[in-house]
């Protein structure tokens, strides 16, 4: 919890700087940090390498927008049907994978297959999704603020505070989750699945829970991402989106609260910090991923922490 406290001073940053680039990078960091935090629950704690979160991210943004336009709902209520869709899909995919006891490589490959199928469906369901052209999002979320009433979230400052708040809430919820008995059971599954089962942990149920929670968080991140960038496209569901989250968690520090957020910040900021062409940027990204795994297997946060974590 103390580590989340380190993020609170970020609320004051807009008072110090009005630099659009810095604030925009941080907004993307906060949004992608939500997805990475979700991925950290299923991979860092439960030890299941899923490739489905890009699908959840993309479906979350499409479903929120379509519910908002189709059902004339405000953003926050439109999130509910989106979460329902992603939960249902996660339960289905997770049920199939865990019921048939798919592990490691096979779990990764099958979730990847489902994510690719989802992408193909989104890409070709043109009447609903407008195909490769994507959807232009003109609506914005609104929030009720004391004194100001219902306010449209528009402009850099509003988005900065909204996404920071969202990230802090998600990080707190995730910290509470992984420190509870649920988190301990997930760690038990990661460290020794057979032993966990022998000790009476229902591994099927806990894996399914971790998988679903992480996908719902990815869907939430996807919805924020689509409404912030005003644009939703099928590429949100692509494999690279999944790989980004994996790289963020590994680089920042697997299994820690702050790690995914640090990773999200570094991978968002690096391409802007150094002026790079697209190819060199992709190569740098790959090199960072390789180095993170070979040199700092516990990521940046783990690297600077003195004692290795117990669970």
């Amino acid at each position: 919890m103390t580590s989340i406290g380190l993020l609170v001073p970020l609320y004051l940053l807009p008072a110090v700087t009005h630099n659009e680039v810095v604030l925009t990078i941080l907004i993307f960091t906060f949004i992608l940090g939500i997805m990475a935090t979700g991925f950290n629950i299923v991979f860092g704690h439960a030890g299941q390498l899923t490739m489905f979160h890009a699908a959840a991210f993309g479906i979350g943004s499409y479903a929120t927008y379509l519910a908002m336009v189709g059902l004339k709902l405000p953003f926050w209520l439109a999130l509910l049907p989106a979460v329902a869709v992603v939960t249902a899909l996660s339960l289905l995919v997770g049920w199939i994978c865990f019921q048939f006891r798919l592990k490691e490589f096979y779990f990764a490959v099958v979730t990847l297959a489902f994510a690719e199928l989802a992408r193909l469906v989104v890409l070709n369901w043109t009447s609903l999704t407008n195909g490769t052209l994507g959807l232009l999002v003109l609506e914005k979320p609104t929030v009720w603020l004391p004194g100001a009433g219902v306010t449209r979230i528009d402009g850099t400052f509003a988005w900065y505070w909204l996404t920071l708040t969202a990230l802090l809430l998600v990080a707190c919820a995730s910290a509470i989750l992984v420190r509870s008995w649920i988190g301990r059971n997930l760690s038990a599954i990661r460290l020794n699945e057979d032993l966990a089962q022998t000790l009476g942990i229902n591994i099927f149920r806990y894996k399914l829970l971790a998988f679903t929670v992480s996908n719902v968080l990815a869907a939430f991140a996807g919805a924020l991402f689509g409404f912030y960038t005003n644009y939703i496209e099928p590429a949100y569901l692509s494999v690279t989106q999944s790989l980004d989250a994996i790289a963020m968690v590994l680089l920042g520090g697997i299994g820690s609260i702050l790690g995914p957020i640090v990773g999200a910040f570094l991978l968002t900021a690096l391409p802007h910090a150094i002026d790079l062409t697209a190819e060199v940027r992709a190569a740098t990204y790959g090199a960072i991923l390789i180095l993170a795994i070979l040199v700092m297997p516990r990521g940046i946060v783990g690297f600077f922490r003195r004692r290795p974590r117990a669970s």
Partner: protein
Amino acid sequence: MSQVIAGQFLNGIIVGTLYGIIALGVTMTFGITGIVNFALGQFMMIGAYAVWHLTDVARLPFPVAAGLAIIIAALAGFLADQTLFRFTRNNLVNGLLVSIGLISVIESAAIYFYTATPKNMDFVLSGSWSVGEITLSRMKVLSFGLLVAVVALTWAGLARTWLGRATRAYAQNPEAAMLMGVRTSALQTGVVVYSCALAGFGGALYASLYSLEPSMGALFILKGVEAAILAGVGNLPGALVGGIILGVTESVGSLFLPVAFRDAYGLVFLVAILLFRPAGLFGGQK
């Protein structure tokens, strides 16, 4: 209509053997080093670009260029093994992530040196044979023959030679093989390099048939993994057959269902096989 189906069927077989050669590499690497080299498709791309460069720019004859391309792909594989994969032996997740990082690096290098514009190689072997209503380009038939020969030789080599026996022994029981005097780390490096050389060979033939782009590798590794799992991981001739089944389904299926779902067949196969017959169609060699 029937000759259209037959034509697509034959096209599917050609593409399928290319899937199969990657699947062979996937299956062998997984059996011996415990990881899947997801960058195998990029080694295929290295082979393809090498052959394009050597024939169209350096003006070497195709067989020489193809031989050099195989060597280049093998050297790249050796380099990758010594600097990266050596440290991720039997750690599937790390191997997966390292090879994914490698994909970005190799692909960006290809875009940097050769740009993203597709390249078309001059015809190596023009002309075609006609059987009834169906015409088949000679190069496609030749490629098919060469790829099948390579798979057959690999299989025979594993079955007959001392090195093959050592490899199979290692796959069965690493400790026992080590005690019998098998130099295991050399063997693991050898298998990684061999799989990259196979991919480079596949790439060289691909270059003579289709146009090249730096992103071509991503498709092939996915199909290769699908074919290997379809056949059963560890089954060498099965990898080729799995690739052909996949290639034929895609080609023929595209006649009846929207082409957009071409890539979905393999995914559906993959899920169905892993759920209902995890050892694969022909059973793995575990």
